[in-house]
């Protein structure tokens, strides 16, 4: 039997039960990591507390290597995974806006929910801002829809772009992450 166990054809109830369970794990992991706290999160951008980098890269490595080895072992069908398609222009523009919002809010959409759910009123304000923003974007969507299609590449991965084997790109990211961890520890020691 090969994963994913419940793909597109799964019954809705099963799929939503998994959504709830995955969400509980997701929220608990972010809370344990301290990312539901804006002060801890923005420490990343002032060189005092680099937990954002440590948490994100550790999670990326585990998930990336897990997918790679499970698929190698024939236990996971990578073709059945949903890979977000690439749209270069709106994704670059969106990222710049998102980063500005992130440093102002001190929380991202996921961690804002964690903050709000753990009693933080600033998290609640971010959640309400996100909702307001989505109302605005949705009601004005016909005006930016064409822009959102620019630079469309469909499903496009780093190994395809670099024309390198999947394993080589993965090894490169692992090396990069280890360097980043070492740099993060050094920066934190210097700030202390």
């Amino acid at each position: 039997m090969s994963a994913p166990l419940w793909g597109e054809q799964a019954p809705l109830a099963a799929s939503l039960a998994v959504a709830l369970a995955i969400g509980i794990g997701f929220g608990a992991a972010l809370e344990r990591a301290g990312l539901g706290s804006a002060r801890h999160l923005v420490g990343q951008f002032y060189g005092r507390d680099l937990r954002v980098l440590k948490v994100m890269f550790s999670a990326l490595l585990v998930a990336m290597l897990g997918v790679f080895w499970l698929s190698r072992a024939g236990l996971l069908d990578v073709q059945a995974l949903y890979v977000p398609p690439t749209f270069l222009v709106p994704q670059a523009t969106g990222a710049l806006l998102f980063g500005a919002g992130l440093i102002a809010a001190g929380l991202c959409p996921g961690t804002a929910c964690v903050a709000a759910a753990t009693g933080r009123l600033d998290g609640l304000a971010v959640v309400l801002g996100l909702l307001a923003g989505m109302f605005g974007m949705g009601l004005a969507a016909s005006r930016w829809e064409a822009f959102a299609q620019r630079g469309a590449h469909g499903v496009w991965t780093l190994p395809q772009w670099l024309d390198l084997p999947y394993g080589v790109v993965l090894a490169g990211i692992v090396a990069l992450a280890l360097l980043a961890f070492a740099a993060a520890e050094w920066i934190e020691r210097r700030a202390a």
Partner: protein
Amino acid sequence: MSAPRPYSDPYLAGVGLGLVLLAAFVLVGRGVGASGAFASTAAGVVAAVAPARAAASPLFAPYLADPGPWGEWLSVELLGAAFGAAGSAVLARRWRVELERGARLGRAARVLLAFAGGMLMAAGAALARGCTSGQALTGGALLSVGSWLFLVLAFASAYALAPLLRRVWT
């Protein structure tokens, strides 16, 4: 009541987060997300008040298809995340009502900045088709070019603007 416990080691928490993401891939073939739940909720509210406007919106319309905006996978997942976070904070005695802000920032200014930051992130996530969860984490783990572009530029943008907002946070 004893003192709140300290947060976990970030590497350990990251491994836990990675295992949750991997479990999502294995169980349902998709990763985690957050901004999609906000888009879906907005779509559901607009559809209830002005169905024609929701159906005419290229951002909202996809959420109106079966099972509808309130049965959206990401919304249920994010609801779970709120439960998971609350439970985790209660167990660690970290749950408390507070307004987190920099030492020099007033309460009203903090709330305004948080709200405005949320609006900006919504605009960015709508354009980029995802946020730190759906693009950076999930798409990043699957080596999507657009997701890595988002990850790098979102952090570059936050780093570039951080000096301007130093008074807000320090």
